């Protein structure tokens, strides 16, 4: 039941919010998202007391005739993902600038949260698909209504691209569904789909691998399916970009972990390496583009492609180290990328430019901004004792176990990440001021609260990652064993 509450509380909150007009809507939305975070903590405590507590999962017949049920469950992996969602939404709401957005905007964010919570907890294939598609709708409206220049064309491309991926995924899931043959007939249940997948021939599994992988690869996105992403991230209003990059792209990595790898093991054996090579190419490819990128927001978008490529490669390596690293990095990347986009928004708001070359010297006029930006940057380049390091270290270790050469190439992110982040930090923050930057104000209270909060998370998770690591360890083990047997 708690899981159901976790999913539908934001929906109720969104509906309530429609009744609120004006400035207060942001504050109320923020309060409601905090309540959702509290619900998550309640879930966490229940999980801590008993990881297989009955209240953590629910299964109700739904469309009985086709064997689809409303089945949700929270295990360690889901708990990490719901944590990410519950944690970031308050930050995202708080970071939206005053006066720019209406109550509908916040309602859409909360609606989005419902869909995300559903994606991360669904254990029924059809339900998963429905939440998956549901997540697309609010973000599409957010981009379309509050987006920047050329938003019509760009959001259209985004919508069609991801929709195409989803439809192919549906085909793959349906194919598996028609192979299920449990005691109760056909079923969309995760466990049944896993059994059905195993029984398929290698070639069939190979096709399904690509059907599912494509959907996840587009969502993350992975090279070469990424071209919708930079435009969309740039044109979306910053809270939308944060939703997309902080949480929504993890639908793809989570899908890979839960809905691809265990379902078609032979398909993975056949094509996993190819997928991994794509992911790793993406790391280098996106890093290189980030190095010469002139637009600050776009630079962060490309750095996100590089990071997510590493996460995907870690999951594909399919060992404890790689998956544990992916779990940590999904949270860490969410926190860091929200921080980076917020910094970009702050700077844009004050200087009216996103062009790196037009900035400079902000360190002199806004030392607090400079310091907090630096901490987030360090998390992003995975300096030890920041959250980024734990994840990246384990990811590379996992990839190394899979193939030494892959790890060496993927490891270039250690160097390239430093190159593009330090380069942009230098041209934006250091050096001398110019007429555009000389009168920039330092952080206000609201901004300080957000950035300090994120910084504490970055360092806290880097110094003492144990509580986070512990959540997902047993679930990862179970998942690995599911595939082995």
């Amino acid at each position, binding site marked *: 039941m708690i899981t159901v509450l976790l999913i539908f509380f934001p929906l109720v909150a969104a509906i309530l919010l429609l009744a609120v007009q004006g400035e207060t809507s942001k504050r109320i939305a923020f309060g409601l998202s905090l309540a959702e975070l509290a619900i998550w903590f309640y879930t966490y405590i229940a999980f801590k007391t008993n990881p297989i507590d009955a209240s953590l999962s629910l299964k109700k017949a739904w469309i009985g005739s086709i064997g689809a049920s409303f089945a949700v469950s929270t295990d360690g992996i889901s708990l990490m993902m719901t944590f990410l969602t519950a944690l970031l939404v308050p930050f995202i709401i708080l970071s939206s600038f005053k006066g720019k957005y209406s109550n509908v905007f916040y309602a859409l964010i909360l609606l989005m949260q419902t869909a995300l919570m559903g994606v991360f907890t669904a254990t029924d294939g059809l339900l998963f698909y429905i939440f998956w598609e549901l997540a697309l709708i609010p973000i599409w409206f957010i981009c379309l209504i509050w987006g920047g220049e050329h938003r019509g064309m760009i959001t259209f491309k985004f919508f069609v691209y991801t929709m195409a991926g989803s439809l192919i995924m549906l085909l793959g899931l349906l194919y598996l569904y028609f192979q299920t043959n449990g005691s109760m007939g056909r079923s969309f249940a995760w466990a049944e789909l896993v059994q059905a997948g195993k029984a398929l021939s290698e070639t069939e599994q190979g096709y399904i691998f690509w059907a599912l992988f494509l959907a996840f690869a587009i969502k993350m996105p992975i090279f070469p399916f990424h*071209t919708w992403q930079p435009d969309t991230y740039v044109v979306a209003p910053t809270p939308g970009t944060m939703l997309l990059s902080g949480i929504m792209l993890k639908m793809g990595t989570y899908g890979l972990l839960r809905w691809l790898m265990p379902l078609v093991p032979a398909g993975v054996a056949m094509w996993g390496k190819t997928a991994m090579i794509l992911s790793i190419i993406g790391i280098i490819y996106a890093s290189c583009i980030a*190095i010469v990128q002139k637009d600050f927001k776009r630079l962060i978008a490309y750095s996100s492609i590089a990071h997510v490529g590493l996460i995907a490669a870690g999951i594909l390596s399919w060992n404890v180290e790689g998956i544990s690293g992916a779990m940590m990095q999904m949270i860490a990347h969410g926190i860091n990328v929200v921080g980076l986009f917020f910094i970009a928004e702050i700077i844009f708001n004050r200087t009216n430019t996103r062009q790196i070359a037009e900035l400079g010297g902000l360190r002199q006029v806004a030392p607090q901004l400079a310091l907090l930006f630096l901490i987030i940057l360090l998390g992003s380049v995975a300096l*030890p004792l920041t959250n980024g390091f734990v994840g990246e270290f384990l990811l590379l270790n996992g990839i190394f176990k899979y193939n030494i050469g892959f790890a060496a190439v993927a490891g270039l992110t250690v160097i390239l990440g430093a190159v593009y982040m330090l380069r942009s930090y230098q041209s934006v923050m250091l050096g001398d001021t110019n007429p555009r930057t000389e009168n920039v104000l330092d952080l206000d209270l609201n901004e300080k609260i957000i950035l300090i909060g994120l910084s504490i998370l970055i360092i806290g998770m880097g110094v003492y990652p144990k509580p986070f690591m512990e959540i997902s360890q047993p679930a990862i083990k179970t998942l690995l064993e599911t595939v082995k047997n």
Partner: protein
Amino acid sequence: MAQLAWLVPLFPLLGFVIIGLANRNLSKSVTTLIGSGSILASFVVSLLLFFEKVSQPTPTTVHLFDWITAGNFSAKFSFLIDPLSTIFLLVITGVGFLIHLYSSGYMHEDDGFRRFFAYLNLFVFFMLLLVMGDNFVVMFVGWEGVGLCSYLLIGYWFENTDYNNAAKKAFIMNRIGDLAFLIGIFLIYQHLGGIDFNTAFNITNLANLAKGNPSAITAITLCLFIGATGKSAQVPLFTWLPDAMAGPTPVSALIHAATMVTAGIYMIARSNALFSLAPLTQDIILYVGLGTALLTASIGLFQNDIKKVLAYSTVSQLGLMFAALGVGAYSAGVFHVVTHAFFKALLFLGAGSVIHGMGGEQDIRKMGGLRQSMPITFWTFVIGTVAISGIPPFAGFFSKDQILAEILAHKGIGITAVAMIVSLMTCFYMFRLLFLTFFGNFRGTQEQKHHLHESPLSMTIPLMVLAFLSTVGGFIGFPHGIGHEMGIHHWLDGFLAQSVVITPNHFTAGQEWTLIGVAVGLLAGIIFWAMKTYVTDGKIPVKDSEMEGLQKVIYDKYYVDETYNRLITKPLNQISSGISNFIETKIIDGGVNGIGHFTKWLSSGIRTIQTGNVDLYFFAMTISAMLILIIKLFDK
């Protein structure tokens, strides 16, 4: 006592947090008190730890908390206190404290005084983690952490673009080494089953691996060594260190001379169990070390920036330390780290005192005759110069002598001659520096001459303490051969025996005396030559524009930076631009948009058929039906 070892890094961390958070609310004197006091407190604890290890050398592990655990992988936050780590603790906190004290005078007029102390404390914290970690991952934490502080402090004056570039270059070059280090850690985990020193250096584990898969040990040690070349500025990753002189001088003394750059030596000495099993890697270390030493010493001969000379000298001395490690003389390498920390910190601080007195001037062609107006700086600088040149009985002599003796014993006279040449070059450029700075006539402006003054006590006291240490510090490693005769024990070898393999001593007192005699004779000749050139004849190095031929090539550092720029930086930028402007926009996104356009084109094509003309539909239907019939006929 050893269980309280966590206090050592705690004090500087607290110092950093307090100064960092309080920032503008602290007066400069309180900042000094907290900043320097924290290091002094660490030094006191380090001393206690050290004495405990002197009487009880067995290693102690201090477990703090479990850090990263995933499956079988486990990295604990634990410290290892043994003779090797305590020696480093003493150097870091001892020399560190003196440099903090010095900074309170040197940086007094700087607006960022508190920020400076915060960074410096943070650096010491990470440096302590580096040498205290009981596994490779904690070592790596310190390793990258000091890299960060180095970045922050090189670019301390952040308005200056050149300084920022130097900082960025240092960080990125270090990261190249760090990647290799990371891969080395993964290899260790894979082949030895754990990344803590206890598991990784377990004798049975190592013996099995050496028998079963010796190339794995070579791979591990090579990766670690590449990591070391980054942090310790060896070929090919050495070019960041001379640029790093952009940072304030105390930073150069602490980070880029006495402590951080010796991290590579520490890492290899710590992993001596592994390196001793990898003869190929050892040879590579020897040759890279010697090559670096020779290359950079030759560059040092022609530099005219007081800090640049010392920077190249540091790289060169580090090269000698690596050469020692390369012949398995770990103790000798560590010994030179210790003495080098004394005299190089002294020389840098002395240089800082000179720069301070000269109002920021660093070009030795514009100095001269400073010995009258800066007597303390002068005399301490003389001691530093004598010590680094290897003149007995000053500190550098003992450690350098031991390195030369070890190389001679293992690799014969040819290789030793190279090391000897490096020593002679060192002696020459150091005396050149000394003479040009402190002797002859003053060559600066009238205004500078008017302002010339000895530095305040906060700066000269550290100079005097370091001068004292540079004078007597060598006795901890009295040569075996002679010492045996005189009844003086090689204390350091004995102390380190718990931590590193000690190579047996090969030389009799007679051979030892010969080696010393030859070295001293040659050094005397070099000093005489330098004196004649720069004092008696009063020669001043020519202006940059008048340099030509080989001198210009060497002065311009053999164009290594330019070559890297052409071979790596530029291509990386060009490839990146190519990807960004062509592959990304034209091919990949172009392809995606192409599919979209194709669909649009196809549907608009199909749309034209939908005319609503029933005759046409009927006609098409008839034709199609006929075609099907015909195909069916032929099918049979």
